[in-house]
């Protein structure tokens, strides 16, 4: 018998859900509103919510002071590049773990995940030195490599859970039908795992897009993505809340739009394996 849900209960739950939703959304909304204020209005006390002098001057100011499009392109190249490279490495890895597991497979998975438990700053100095010595500092290629590596455990884990759902007999059938390992992965496994691969792709693009620690530390100007573009407005020279907000809004807008259009895939990706 289904549980009886009273109207009162529904009202309370709805109110809580909305409150939480607004609470989470509020910083983004506030950033968005602030980006249309003058610098004076931005720091006014008490803060003004909607009734201030709306202006777009921050956007034109930001546009003229820095090369948004350049940073945007860097972000696109770094996030898409690292995700695609990660997938190319992770698909065979996840295949091996899902369909040809050994006694140590679980340990390998755990070990991969454990690398995400260490604070990244712990590895900053060696990686920085390696980058400096090999001339990878402030290069898109270098950032693609480092973001691929830091997101690889998540990509492998996600793909592994998806692949586990694919019946092994289908891959065996491909083997019996004369498919080599590469053909089995390209023609049979990958097409069947498309929804899973798409979710993994989206989530990792978002993670790579938002990644700030490595991108800020390993880039200066040439390869600097949007995270560095935002950071450049929080300088000690003075308060630039409005401009900082405008820059932030411009930096998060593309990924928000991408996320909006792919909500369904993302939710499936994030909750995959949670309920069966």
């Amino acid at each position, binding site marked *: 018998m289904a549980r009886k849900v009273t109207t009162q209960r529904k009202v309370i739950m709805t109110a809580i859900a909305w409150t939480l939703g607004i609470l989470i959304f509020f910083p983004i909304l506030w950033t968005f509103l602030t980006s249309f204020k003058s610098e004076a209005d931005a720091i006014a006390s008490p803060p003004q919510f909607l009734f201030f002098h709306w202006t777009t001057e921050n956007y034109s100011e930001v546009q003229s002071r820095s090369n948004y499009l350049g940073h945007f392109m860097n972000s696109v190249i770094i996030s898409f590049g690292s995700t695609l490279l990660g997938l190319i490495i992770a698909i065979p890895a996840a295949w091996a773990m899902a369909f040809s597991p050994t006694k140590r497979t679980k340990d390998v998975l755990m070990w991969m995940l454990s690398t995400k438990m260490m604070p990244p700053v712990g590895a900053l100095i060696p990686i920085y030195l390696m980058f400096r010595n090999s001339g990878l500092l402030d290069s898109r290629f270098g950032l693609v490599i480092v973001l691929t590596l830091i997101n690889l455990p998540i990509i492998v884990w996600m793909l592994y859970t998806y692949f586990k759902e694919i*019946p092994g*007999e*289908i891959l*065996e*059938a*491909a*083997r*019996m*039908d*004369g*498919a*080599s390992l590469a*053909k089995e992965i390209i*023609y*049979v496994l990958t*097409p*069947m795992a*498309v929804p899973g691969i798409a979710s993994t792709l989206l989530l990792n693009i978002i993670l790579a897009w938002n990644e700030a620690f490595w991108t800020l530390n390993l880039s200066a100007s040439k390869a600097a993505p949007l995270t560095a573009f935002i950071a450049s407005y929080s300088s000690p020279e003075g308060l630039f809340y409005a401009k900082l907000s405008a820059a932030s809004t411009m930096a998060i807008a593309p990924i928000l739009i991408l996320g909006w259009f792919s909500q369904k895939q993302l939710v499936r990706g994030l909750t995959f394996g949670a309920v069966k």
Partner: protein
Amino acid sequence: MGSITLQKVSKVFGEAKVIPSIDLDIKDGEFVVFVGPSGCGKSTLLRLIAGLEDVSGGKIVIDGKDATERAPSERGLAMVFQSYALYPHMSVRNNIAFPLKMAGMDKAEIDKKVADAARVLNLTDYLERKPRQLSGGQRQRVAIGRAIVRQPSAFLFDEPLSNLDAALRVNMRIEISELHQQLKTTMIYVTHDQVEAMTMADKIVVLNKGNIEQVGSPLELYKNPRNLFVAGFIGSPKMNFVKGQTAAQLGAHTIGIRPEHVMLSNESGEWKGRVTVAEHLGSDTFLHIDVDGIGPVTARGGGEFAAKAGDTVYLTPDKTRIHKFNEGGLAI
């Protein structure tokens, strides 16, 4: 060509010896059925032949050549899986064409072969559909189609009918037998269903705990089971086993008598018993009888044999059809 020879083939999973050591000869064109209870190693044996599992010891020879170390794709065998294992993202046409594409055949020839296979299997109207749009029987046919297009040296079937409903299973059984007569290709068929084994096989291999209990034609196994296991496994309903005095009188530790070799009567007979359950199938009547001094015995009567639970009936075993076994369970 499609002869397969197993020489001292064994398989160990960790600590478990699934197949201790098996020797078996399968001749070209034979329909061989591996039958046995679940967990007897029959599917493992098939997968070893296919190359989907590596042997732990021994040799697998296909068409006179040692194939033990060869990859599944290089053994020239085709397999039909229990779950059909169709490629869900491909149309029926592409499913059937897949092995040909993998073999690098040119498109015109692939189209022709797919069309031929589809015609044989009545799939012509479904070529553009996806597997999920097909019924169980149609999916099974696609799986068979995918196996036959390549003209393999042998077909391997892994419990292919166990996901189908009873009526369809009988039809597919006949279709597979017809296919074998048409193609005359070696077929190895794994099942736990002794009816499938009896009806389809040229040669039955009865497996138990990874060992071959007996190899022979269906009627050989039915008439001369080598031991208690085969005697109990082949035949439906199961052979009755009687121990003790009754057996000792005939010079055996255990005697076996099939339900169809016990004559039933309402008036007189050698044994007297009380019906516990009566199953009226129309064509036959199966009576489960508690026989005085012997225990439960199943007997087959004609479809019209009138008896219900609680009735007293008389049984007379056909003396010429009694199987005798010694203490070790071997036939005497």
